[in-house]
């Protein structure tokens, strides 16, 4: 079946601009995660959505970052007033309930470059 998809695959923007990154999770997966992968670093947790519960935003690095998940499916990560240090690959993952609830399925990522 279809995996997690993300768009765009690449985004180049100028410092100070706002960007929106999109994630389409696997159909039926209740949990959705955003991670950031900077060059030479591991993945950093950003935010987590689970069903209709309030999201866990504990990983968001500043108030310029926000995310929403509409209808329990598609999610958008928004970065306002982008800075050069925001350059990274942004990864989305989703996971199901049931026996495989602790397995996260990752999308291919969006590579963001801030000039």
């Amino acid at each position: 079946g279809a995996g997690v998809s993300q768009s765009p695959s690449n985004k180049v923007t100028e410092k100070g601009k706002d960007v929106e990154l999109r994630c389409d999770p696997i159909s039926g997966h209740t949990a959705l995660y955003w991670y950031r992968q900077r060059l030479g670093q591991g993945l950093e947790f950003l935010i987590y959505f689970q069903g209709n519960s309030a999201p866990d935003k504990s990983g968001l690095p500043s108030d310029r970052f926000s995310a929403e998940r509409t209808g329990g499916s598609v999610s958008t990560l928004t970065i306002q007033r982008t800075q050069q240090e925001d350059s990274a690959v942004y990864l989305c993952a989703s996971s199901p309930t049931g026996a495989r609830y602790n397995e996260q399925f990752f999308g291919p990522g969006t590579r963001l470059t801030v000039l």
Partner: protein
Amino acid sequence: AQSVTQLDSQVPVFEEAPVELRCNYSSSVSVYLFWYVQYPNQGLQLLLKYLSGSTLVKGINGFEAEFNKSQTSFHLRKPSVHISDTAEYFCAVSDRVSGGSNYKLTFGKGTLLTVNP
């Protein structure tokens, strides 16, 4: 909070040689451990996971890992590697998200495995 240390940032090996990628983690009451692989220009894919039970876990593509609680390690091994195993490997530890039944992951910085002919 959890933390993960991958001791080697790069591991070059020759084809058909054995390989071990090292991973150590900070201790926790309830530890779930994972290895993910990222092939060039692809997303992360789960290799294997340890939740409970047998400390030797087998995954896809002939990889296995052993959970060692006393040494807080979860090293990944393969007895004979192929060119196609060239990829970046990430060790991860679960960290329970408050109020939820799913688990957010804390990742190591990754180990780039390069298999040479």
